């Protein structure tokens, strides 16, 4: 079950509450609603509005209890309402016509948000999953030439300064290194890795040694950015734990939003290469980190007892 991002989920819940707010009066006081929409002159308006009310409560239930994907049912409902109100306005004049048009305008406003939310549910995705591997990718542009960026990365012991899930990378020789990662729920995960491709200023690839707990591989490409804007850095990481538990294992290693984590890693790489340091604030005293962003401390200076 690919979950939607938190904004989409929030929008979904919000629309759910709105549906509840719209639906309830339609069931309790359909006459009032009919008057406001300028259709109180039609005998069928009250039963129709009651039906719409029932439909709104259906949207509410779907959105509040189920997935944001229920926003699509709202889009369909909006289209219906717009058609009805449009006809109502065409057939009326004076004050009633004005009220029907106003109601239609209001519905149109809501439709935009409904459609936006619904579309987001389609777009949300996290990583590409094949049967038993998880591939993550991210990219960033850095105002330094490819050689500088490559050289920084090529010294693998630098990786933990911007890849927060790594505790250390010990370089053994030109090809071999030993990686230690923090795994929040377990003690630590370690593996040996070897460099499998190395083209100066262009490309670097590595792979964990056979028999690692979490078989993984990675590749980073460096290319000059157009218009003298430095270097385009593109990273791809692949995890192939045995038994198809890729999603689970990676979530433990990288958190709930692994792709966001990789993007944050690259953001820190950019900060380090452009400004010399990882950028810190009071709310994020450890710097850019997906996990941190969810649990912000207030934007107040740290108490002195804390080590900074």
């Amino acid at each position: 079950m690919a979950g939607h991002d938190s904004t989409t989920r929030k929008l979904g819940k919000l629309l759910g509450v709105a549906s509840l707010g719209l639906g309830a009066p339609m069931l309790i006081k359909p006459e009032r609603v009919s008057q406001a929409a300028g259709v109180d002159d039609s005998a069928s308006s009250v039963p129709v509005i009651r039906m719409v009310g029932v439909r709104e409560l259906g949207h509410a239930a779907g959105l509040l209890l189920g997935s944001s994907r229920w926003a699509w049912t709202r889009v369909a409902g909006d289209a219906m309402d717009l058609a009805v109100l449009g006809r109502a306005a065409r057939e009326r004049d004076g004050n009633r016509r004005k009220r029907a048009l106003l109601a239609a305008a209001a519905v149109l406003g809501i439709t935009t948000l409904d459609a936006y939310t619904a579309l987001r549910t389609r777009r949300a995705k996290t990583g590409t999953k094949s049967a038993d591997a998880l591939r993550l990718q991210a990219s960033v542009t850095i105002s330094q030439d490819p050689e500088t960026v490559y050289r920084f990365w090529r010294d693998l012991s630098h990786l933990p300064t911007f890849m927060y899930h790594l505790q250390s990378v010990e370089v053994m020789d030109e090809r071999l290194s030993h990686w230690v990662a923090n795994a929040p729920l377990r003690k630590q995960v370690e593996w040996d890795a070897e460099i499998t491709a190395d083209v100066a200023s262009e490309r670097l690839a590595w792979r964990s040694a056979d028999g690692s707990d979490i078989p993984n591989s990675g590749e980073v490409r460096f290319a000059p950015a157009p218009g003298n804007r430095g270097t385009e850095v593109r990273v791809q990481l692949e995890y192939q734990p045995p038994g198809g538990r890729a999603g689970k294992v990676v979530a433990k290693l990288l958190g709930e939003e692994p792709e966001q984590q990789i993007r944050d890693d690259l953001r820190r790489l950019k900060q380090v290469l452009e400004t010399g340091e990882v950028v810190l604030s009071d709310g994020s005293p450890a710097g850019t980190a997906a996990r941190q962003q969810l649990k912000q401390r207030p934007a107040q200076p740290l108490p002195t007892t804390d080590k900074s």
Partner: protein
Amino acid sequence: MRANCWMGTKKVEVLEVPDPKILSSQDAIIKVTSTAICGSDLHLYDGYMPTMKRGDVIGHEFMGEVVEVGSGVRRVAVGDRVVVPFPIACGACWACERGLVSVCENSNPNAGMAEKVLGHSPCGIFGYSHMLGGYAGGQAEYVRVPFADVGPLKIEDDLPDEQVLFLSDILPTGYMGAELCDIKPGDVVAVWGAGPVGQFAMASAYLLGAEKVIAIDRFDYRLDIAATTGAMPLNYEHTNVLEELKELTAGRGPDACIDAVGMEGHHSSTALHTYDKVKQTTRLETERPHALREAILACRNGGTVSVIGVYGGMLDKFPMGAVVNRSLTIKAGQCHVHRYMRPLLDRIRNGEIDPSFVITHRMSLDEAPEGFDIFVNKEDSCNKIVLTP
């Protein structure tokens, strides 16, 4: 130290919080001598800015004395008197190199949060939500200032705080609002919002050669202050703004329109005001863009709409038809303060502008909650409040 903290919607409190410390070699600690309340702070106060947290130290307009610097700081030293620009900028990224400091690519550690709402992340800002960095702000006795070699402007002569404090935000903001209009001789410029930002936009429009500037608001006391810049006041509760602007320009419409109101606009038609207020309260839209809609409709064909009022997310009923069919240009931005500070300091020194004309209230930092209350309700003819710790 004492600091003004956001404690929830319509609630700020001056509390005892820890003193800031150097976190990075490029930081400085400033002892604040003057700080101000900005219209932007009202968006936080009224609860319309997402990602605020109880206890956040707010405030982004401040100046003071450097009391500590990190090991890597070269251009300011302990004892220097400085004004600090509200956008935090690294000075090294692609955007900073081009002077677009308010979209610095490195200064927002919470860029991932901002991306979700805004697509890409702008810079970090002092005391202005977690989405914009989670930095403690300047309505406090002390502030940690990152990238101290990039932002703070040294004030080496004896100009009083009140004349230079607004270099931190609203004077450059108003100036940029006018600069975005690309003013040509003969141009008529209309400014929505006769608050301090609008008032500086009006003064700047004249500095940049506008023929006539029109000030639009509903508070006569603010329009009176605006009139001291030479602007012609228009109270939108007493006239129909669109008609009046057509009349004043013999049908053309103003050559440029500046929105210095932002997301909490007010509308004289109760129905329309209620429509947006309800949607904003239920978070179905985040803005009440009355001034912006009107500015777009008023602007002459082929003219420019400059948006310096702050918006936070999504808005409804945007007159895109007018923009496209009438070839309008919309320009906007959080102010790129750094690039205007020095030239504007020169103008202050030369006596071309004395920014202290906007100040109506001087209070102590401890009185900040009372200050927010009168500023948000526009009571006691409040135009701009300066706080001293």
